[in-house]
């Protein structure tokens, strides 16, 4: 800063207090929380996660809030675009002056935001985006409240290998950061266990046909297929797989899809019965363990269609409330960060794995279950053939 003209330095000082303030965005009866998500654009189906999170805030508020303070969400759209996302983050931090941030669905945006938010120093709980580089290396104020791509990818590969005699694994993916965040760690895990993927195929967003991909697979019939594809493409791929007589090969999907909605789209159990997905929850989406969360969302957002994205951010909300309670009525940003660091083995009642944050490791959720159809019903599984 030395060589800058003095008035420049002066403006920097003017802006500075907002950063340092420990109680910005805090009043006696409210904690303002910036909730960023892709509420518009072609990834807007992800913003269901933020809707679920805000429903959770509403529920906490209806029960009186935390130490008499309501959780007030300030919603900002990122459009899943880095420039827009940066503007949103800066707006929340410096103009709306929120106390903390929670949310973010798109990995690319979150990765681009990291330096900015790390510097600003306010607590940020990443509640949907999976890329490991958001929280690794560790930043004091950035917490990952969902299983990361690495955890998910390895869980996928682990499940694939838990099936006896799995030798040949093929991979089909979108060529974007989202798909790679799953498939790269999955491939790494496979290689560690001596399994080299027989094929890595591409199916881009918007493709309406997977014939070429499926015929390539038919040539050397893999034992298992890992599919890092979005909702529509997953359905198209599964359909084509069945159509060309490969319907009996099991397919392992990401947390970007779920069994119930994939079945609804495809419309026929026979096509999806060998489809498995990463399932980060304690129960099936329509199981009793998840019912109360579904009811909660519908209470505050009656028209919301529920998918597996809807619940993913709630676990980090539970952790936040626990840390806020522990931080006591004299809340500061540092106190909250210190309490988040103490969250250990927290059963959130929604995520299948507990949340543990320590000062050295902010990737709080280390594992995911898998869900698959057993006797035609979605069932949470620990490993091949083993119910959770």
């Amino acid at each position, binding site marked *: 800063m030395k060589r800058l003209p003095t008035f420049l330095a002066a403006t920097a000082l003017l802006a500075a207090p907002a950063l340092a303030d420990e109680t910005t965005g805090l009043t006696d009866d409210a904690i303002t929380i910036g909730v960023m998500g892709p509420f*518009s654009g*072609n990834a*807007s*189906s992800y*913003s*269901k996660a933020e809707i679920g999170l805000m429903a959770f805030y509403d529920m906490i508020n209806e029960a009186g809030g935390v130490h008499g303070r309501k959780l007030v969400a300030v919603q900002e759209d990122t459009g899943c675009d880095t420039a827009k996302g940066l503007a949103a983050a800066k707006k929340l931090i410096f103009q709306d002056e929120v106390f903390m941030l929670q949310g973010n669905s798109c990995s690319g945006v979150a990765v681009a935001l990291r330096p900015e938010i790390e510097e600003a120093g306010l607590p940020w709980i990443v509640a949907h985006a999976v890329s490991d580089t958001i929280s690794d290396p560790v930043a004091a104020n950035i917490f990952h409240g969902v299983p990361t791509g690495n955890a998910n990818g390895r869980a996928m590969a682990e499940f694939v290998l838990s099936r006896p005699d799995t030798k040949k694994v093929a991979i*089909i993916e979108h*060529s974007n950061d989202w798909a790679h965040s799953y498939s790269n760690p999955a491939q790494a895990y496979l290689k560690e266990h001596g399994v080299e993927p027989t094929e890595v*195929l*591409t*199916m*881009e*967003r*918007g*493709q*309406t*046909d997977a*014939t*070429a*991909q499926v*015929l*390539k697979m*038919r*040539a050397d019939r893999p034992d298992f297929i890992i599919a890092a594809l979005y*909702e*529509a493409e997953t*359905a*198209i791929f599964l359909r084509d797989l069945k*159509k*060309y*007589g490969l319907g009996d090969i099991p397919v392992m999907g990401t947390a970007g899809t779920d069994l119930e909605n994939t079945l*609804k*789209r*495809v*419309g026929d159990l026979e096509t999806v019965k060998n489809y498995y997905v990463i399932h980060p929850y304690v129960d099936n989406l329509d199981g009793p363990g998840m019912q109360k969360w579904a009811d909660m969302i519908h209470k505050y957002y009656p028209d919301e*269609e529920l998918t597996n994205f809807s619940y993913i951010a709630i676990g980090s909300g539970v952790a936040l409330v626990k840390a806020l309670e522990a931080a006591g009525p004299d809340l500061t940003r540092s106190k909250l960060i210190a309490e988040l660091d103490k969250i250990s083995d927290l059963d959130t009642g929604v995520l299948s794995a507990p949340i543990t944050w320590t000062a050295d490791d902010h990737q709080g959720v280390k594992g995911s279950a898998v869900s698959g159809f057993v006797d035609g019903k979605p069932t949470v599984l620990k490993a091949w053939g083993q119910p959770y």
Partner: protein
Amino acid sequence: MLMQLTLSGASQGAIYALVALSLTVVYRSTTVVNFGHGDLVMSGAFVAYVLVVGLGLAFLPAAVIAVVAMFGLGVCFSRGLIRPIRGGPHIGFALMSIALGYTLRGIARTVWGREVLPMPRVFDIEPIFLGDVVLTGDALFTIATVAVLLGLFFAMLTFTDIGKMVQAVYQSERGARLVGINVSRFHDLSWGTGAALGAVGGILIAPVSFLHPDLGASFLIKGFAAMTLGGFGSLGGAVLGGVVLGLAEQYAGAYIDTALIDITAYLLIILVLLVRPRGLFGRKAVVKV
């Protein structure tokens, strides 16, 4: 494998052909390329969806109503938004069509944005196996519908009075005006026809591709590629270009690399440019200066 690829390439290509043809119909008569066409394809599918799922209509009447509605939208677009800026620079038409598409997509997203919707399938018959080759109802239905439609279209163009009128306008707009043809109305009808044909494409693909607001975006580019391939502005060329593109995608994907499927269209556009700018079946595409 070759047979199978050819079959699915033909089925995809049939849709591309339809989209390319509908683009060309508008282009030939108005010299405007509709950059919002992909979203008209998407809109046609959404209208059919609302009729089938929302109002419980059977597929066929729903499809017919949707196509007619899209015809109406095309005519309205021409009348309300293209006519007033006629005489302006071409960039105006390009932007107007982009803006229309953008608005339609925005509306679709606001109403259905965060879901991927399944369109009920029409010909959900058991696949037929011919040796190693699988025939599905969707593929057969798509190819047959497009073939019949194209047959009717070209027969009308060649054998009827309307067709002769169309040919006349294509030849010389001024001449057509002199013999008393209402060229403005002809333009409106071309936009309507383009929108309607595009909607048919959307309705045919939706049961396979599912419905989402970005459905049309990729079809626009494929339509462009087919159009370029067939010689910019040739009706028959657009259809052939579409089929060639559909096949090329499948072959490139299966025999070279699946990562190529998505850019086959772009590669073909550049290739045509480098090798034969007039396209395969070229009318003269090059502007003399």
